[in-house]
């Protein structure tokens, strides 16, 4: 039943030019673009050999009538069900996938237009609201809670034909870096099931890594898309703050939260970003900036010149290659830098002296905002309520039993930081640090087109390894939190391996761009990905299954 699944190994080296996906351009980025979108979309099949993009491959299969959406969905679902017992990526699996696939097939059989994400199975992190499925945020306090609305990002995915395959596991409300903080289950890393997938979007990362779905949505407050992407060997894209509507994303730290994208290729992550980006009148912090057509950059490698990135100024952040970083990670990043150099980039080390301040500032700000954002989980209107004698006990019991330890700790820290007499020393000072960090990134990005760093100080570690050492876990966020504080976009893509697991563990390279310049990151990332030599990033868990199919 895995007949339609093509190994990335076989997908990765095809050299036909890609047709640009005009459909995903910025021309229809308003809240009310429901039914009209597909009319704008080129309904001819993209070229057969679509590089490594699963989305383009699916589109080709559908529009050329080689495969039906039902066949594609069945294939993906069977792989999902086969691998899920090993991984536990999902908290809920949709029971309407095949019905939705059938609807697409019906449209195709009537020669009606289908959206650019038609037949694409999309995993959605469980802190992103979906109207027809439970949305728990990984928390006991929202056990079996079903929102009455779809998050804007989900709504846009559906409007473009995407099929939400299920809700992926996460650290409770996004607070954690291992997905062990879920109230429901622990997700495993497809590269080594004894290891964590990272977090908090561990379920979304593992699901794409094991090809349980084509792409997935995650959320990134301090690295929750990029670090699990690195751990699971997939592409993770954290957009600029404001690029994607947060409406329907359960707030953790509102000034830092963004919805991000996972894909098994830069193209897939970019196409998904194009689908969900743009202003939303339901989110006052979403930007009015136009969304460029990212897909024009996803051309095949034979269209690249000898030095496709000639003159691109790349700053390697020297603070990210300090003593605390795993030597294997450091050498993978240096190798990636060399590869970029071969592509024509000018690599320069840049120093961001404020870099180390990011971690404490982040944990103060994120905890402060979360202590406020999580106040609504009081057991009064929705979610688990624990009966009690008196209002304070009702609140106390509902929250004591509803929240996990990590969430409680952050609520306590945040409450403390915002308390009278401490506000200036903590919250206010952290905001000042944030300004310093933002300015230092701005300066570095005036000098450089992109900045690069590891996505995490190490590859995936073992389940339970850091569970009782929160500070060690927090320290793992050092590479990513600054980017959230500065509100910048960043792309993480696999760049190498370190020892560990049955076949080695992937290492991710982080590329940081100027605000709203995702386009440059995607272009550079795509060229990097398409020209990278060495083994491909297919986890052993499915590599064998693919081989046997």
């Amino acid at each position, binding site marked *: 039943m895995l007949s339609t699944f093509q190994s990335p190994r076989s997908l990765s080296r095809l050299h036909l030019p890609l047709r640009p996906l005009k459909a995903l351009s910025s021309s229809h980025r308003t809240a009310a673009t429901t039914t009209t979108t597909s009319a704008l979309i080129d309904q001819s099949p993209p070229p057969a050999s679509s590089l490594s993009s699963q989305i383009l491959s699916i589109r080709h299969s559908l529009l050329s009538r080689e495969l039906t959406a039902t066949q594609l969905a069945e294939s993906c679902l069977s792989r999902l069900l086969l691998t899920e017992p090993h991984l536990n990526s999902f908290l809920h699996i949709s029971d309407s996938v095949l019905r939705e696939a059938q609807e697409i097939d019906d449209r195709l059989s009537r020669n009606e237009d289908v959206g650019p994400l038609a037949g694409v199975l999309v995993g959605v992190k469980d802190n992103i*609201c979906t109207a027809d499925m439970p*949305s728990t945020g990984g928390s006991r306090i929202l056990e079996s809670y079903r929102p*009455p609305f779809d998050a804007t990002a989900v709504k846009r995915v559906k409007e473009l034909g995407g099929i939400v395959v299920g809700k992926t596991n996460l650290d409770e409300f996004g607070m954690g870096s291992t997905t062990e903080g879920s109230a429901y289950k622990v997700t495993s890393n497809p590269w080594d099931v004894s290891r964590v997938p990272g977090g908090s979007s561990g379920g979304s990362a593992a699901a794409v890594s094991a090809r349980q779905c084509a792409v997935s949505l995650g959320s990134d407050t301090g690295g929750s898309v990029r670090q699990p992407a690195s751990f699971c060997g997939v592409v993770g894209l954290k957009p600029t703050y404001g690029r994607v509507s947060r409406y329907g994303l*359960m707030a953790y730290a509102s000034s830092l939260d963004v919805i991000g994208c996972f894909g098994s290729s830069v193209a897939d992550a970019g196409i998904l970003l194009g689908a969900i980006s743009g202003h939303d009148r339901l989110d006052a*912090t979403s930007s009015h900036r136009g969304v460029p057509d990212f897909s024009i950059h996803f051309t095949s490698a034979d269209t690249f010149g000898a030095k496709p990135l000639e003159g691109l100024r790349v700053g390697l952040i020297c603070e990210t290659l300090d003593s605390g970083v795993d030597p294997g990670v450091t050498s993978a990043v240096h190798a990636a830098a060399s590869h970029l150099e071969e592509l024509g980039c000018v690599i320069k080390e840049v120093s961001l002296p404020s870099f180390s301040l990011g971690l404490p500032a982040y944990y103060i700000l994120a905890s402060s905002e979360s202590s406020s954002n999580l106040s*609504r989980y009081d057991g*009064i209107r929705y979610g688990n309520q624990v009966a009690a004698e008196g209002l304070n006990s009702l609140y106390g019991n509902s929250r004591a039993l509803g929240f996990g330890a990590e969430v409680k700790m952050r609520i306590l820290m945040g409450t403390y930081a915002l308390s009278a007499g401490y506000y200036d020393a903590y919250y206010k000072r952290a905001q000042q640090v944030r300004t310093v960090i933002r300015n230092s990134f701005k300066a570095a990005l005036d000098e450089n087109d992109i900045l690069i760093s590891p996505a995490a100080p190490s590859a995936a570690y073992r389940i339970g390894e850091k569970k009782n050492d929160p500070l060690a876990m927090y320290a793992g966020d050092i590479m990513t939190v600054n980017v959230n504080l500065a509100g910048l976009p960043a792309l993480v893509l696999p760049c190498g391996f370190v020892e560990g697991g049955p076949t080695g563990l992937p290492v991710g390279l982080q590329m940081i761009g100027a605000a709203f310049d995702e386009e440059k990151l995607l272009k550079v990332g795509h060229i990097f990905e398409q020209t990278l030599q060495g083994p491909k990033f297919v986890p052993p868990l499915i590599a064998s299954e693919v081989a046997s199919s």
Partner: protein
Amino acid sequence: MASLLFRGMLTHPPILDCIPSLFSRNVCARYYRMGTITQAHVATQESQSSQLKIPPNARNNSLERLLKDYEAIIGIETHVQLSTLTKAFCSCPYNYGSPPNSSICPVCMGLPGALPVLNSKVIESAVRLGLALNCKLSFNSKFDRKQYFYPDLPKGYQISQFDIPIASAGYIELDLPLEFGGGHRKFGITRVHMEEDAGKLLHSGNGNYSQVDLNRAGVPLLEVVSEPDMRNGIEAAEYAAELQRLVRYLGVSNGNMQEGSLRCDVNISVRPRGQSEFGTKVEIKNLNSFSSVNRAIDFEISRQALLLSQGQGDQIVQETRLWEEGSQKTITMRKKEGLSDYRYFPEPDLPEVILTEEYVNKIRGSLPELPEMKRRRYEEMGLGMQDVLFLANDVRVANFFDAAIANGAEVKLAANWIMGDVAAYLKNEKLSIDEIKLTPHELAELIAAIKGGTISGKIAKEILFELMAKGGTVKKLIEEKDLVQITDPSEIEKIIDKVLLDNPKQLEQYRGGKTKLQGFFAGQVMKATKGKANPGLLNKILLEKLNS
């Protein structure tokens, strides 16, 4: 079990959620706030009027005596509910009295993932009121979160403004009613800020559970904080009344105290005269009318001054007291257990509020003539203070008066007609001036008709009644009813002759010395002319005839 009633708001939004009413005293102080306000809404049915009706002699004499030695310092926090079409941060409409939870959405219910988006009308209203209160505007302000737990507060925080209110450092001017001694006053305004309202709790009769109605959650409010410039109940009540007048003139709120659209919390402390430091501050809540503001404050001043005069000042503690309409007393609601820490911080879901000079100037240009300006203008027009206060009290009356003047009506006559017959009619019919059929133009016509001698004052009253009840024009009514005054002496003479001829007996008696019968003849003439004879002419000619 009451708690079983809890579930189901999502599947059946209009159904009230219930909370076990286990909030015993001290468990949650805010319970009382909501509980009592709800109760008071039912209990008080005082008529809505900006003008106080309590005569000054009702103020007790012991208060007068005590106030020789003590003075009160009074400040007021007022919440003005804005009459925007939709709530502050979502597109739900708000209508007072609609069925519980019939006007709610994910945003005002505080569902996970929902985000606030500011209704720009809230800023416009805030700027309008800020300018009208002579405030300094903050061209760069922001929203903050004020955090506390209560079942009527869905998000666990209220979106408000903390350290940078949109308007500050203004003042309000007013004229005290003459029955309270009159006088012009100017009270400072500390700040005006924008915030959202909370929902309402409804408590079951048996006290077993409480229900949450979120219709009001997210409705925009402006909180207006005064300087502690008031010294007695009447000043405080008139401050509140002027604020109500202002928001109604501006059209930003209906200012209705009974519906809770204008809510006053009073802070009051008393100190011996001559002492520079303030006494202990007490807050009074549950003030549902201007007269209760007045009476509650005077009661509280007496209570505190009496304690101070008896050396029991230590019994005055920082607390919140409740005005009880029934017993006309304030009672302890809750003692302050130190300062509450609301852990304010900037609301990250909303962008900063940036005002441009152009935007503010546009609003400034659109402001109507405000009550204080009207009063000063009416004064200059030569009206007495009684008339000035009456006319400027209600913006609709003031506008009617202004329109009548613009249509050529004489100032004093227009004022008299509006304050007399028109006001009486409005009171009887329980109507407002813009609900009657009479137009300012016709009032001006009517006054002109009297002045020009076309109709008598008596006929004018009849016509006025018709105009108010049924409408129409003065001209047409006079024609239709043939009401034009008879001013032709020869015509009047003819009628008098006929009356004298028809009543020979009475004429004989008159001429025999019974001169009182003059009235009888005048009456007969009026009867014959259906009241249209010019009274002056009539009497003059009649007297000549009788005595000839």
